[in-house]
């Protein structure tokens, strides 16, 4: 029996460890399989949470933008100052007619927002003539 060389020693180390790893008892093997599957399952669950389909992201973003624009634009339109509404008022009103500018502004907004009053706008000449005639 001679002196063990480093290579022989390393070979023995490898063989001994390989043998141990390859001959684990069935209970330990089952444990290891279970924890591996748990790790993968846990990761899948967390990644499922973060991987919502991208088109859903798109729809959600579009909905939020629409809502924000609606909330931002509508109150501004309704609360616009009387001076800004003056030209519209002058168009709609005869010189003798004096109505509250805010009310007219509100009316103009209502007309613009509702589709059924478009006939009224198309026949504006007749209404202007009627107002001038019978004022």
């Amino acid at each position: 029996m001679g002196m063990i060389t480093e290579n022989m020693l390393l070979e023995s180390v490898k063989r001994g460890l390989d043998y141990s790893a390859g001959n684990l008892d069935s209970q330990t093997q089952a444990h290891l399989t279970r924890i591996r599957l748990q790790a993968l399952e846990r990761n899948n669950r967390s990644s499922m949470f973060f991987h919502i389909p991208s088109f859903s992201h798109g729809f959600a973003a579009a909905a939020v933008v629409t809502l924000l624009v609606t909330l931002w634009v509508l109150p501004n339109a309704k609360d616009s100052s009387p001076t800004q509404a003056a030209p519209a008022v002058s168009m709609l009103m005869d010189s003798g007619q004096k109505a509250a500018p805010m009310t007219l502004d509100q009316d103009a907004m209502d007309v613009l927002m509702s589709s059924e009053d478009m006939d009224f706008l198309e026949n504006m000449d007749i209404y202007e003539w009627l107002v001038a005639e019978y004022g």
Partner: protein
Amino acid sequence: MMETTALVTGHNGQLEHETQRESALTSTAKMNNFLRGVEHRAFVIARLATQDNEESLDIVQDAMFKLVQKYSAHPETEWGALFHAILHSRINDWHRRQKVRNRWRVFFFLSDNEDDEAYKPEEHVAQTQFPEPEEQALQAEMSEIMLAAIGVLPLRQQQALLLRAWEGYDIAETAKIMKCSEGSVKTHYSRAIHSLRGKLGGYNGNDN
């Protein structure tokens, strides 16, 4: 026109989602294969360091969880080194906790008879299940002796030996995994070899 655009966008989104799902499944399958390939060796490494089956399973579990959660996206070629870095870090943490626990035990004069007994590594190694053939019995015996000898090495020597001789990492990779200098790795490794040679000097499996 807008409806068509929405449909196309939706369809593309679905395709993208399916591609993502497929790549996630492929990634999961790859990770599963990787973990299956290293779990037994990882357990042996942890058991050599802790000499406790339950603790070893916990350490391997922690290492697996962390690798999967934090490093799944890393290239597959990096997984081995990352996994061993996590595993050895967990083993070091376990040893630190054990030291603190032992200090408290000494402080409160709690004597644990089991702890007082000299540790016999050969009593803790895995039992072979089918030792009938003579060669297998010999291998089992050699494995037990080897594990016992490695098990009593100081932790850092043990880590350097396992990473270099068993896992096949070079000095630089081993240093990264062990979070120490290359010089330290060389020292630990050389001491481990010297110590093993001293212990196994009278035993050579090839002579039998």
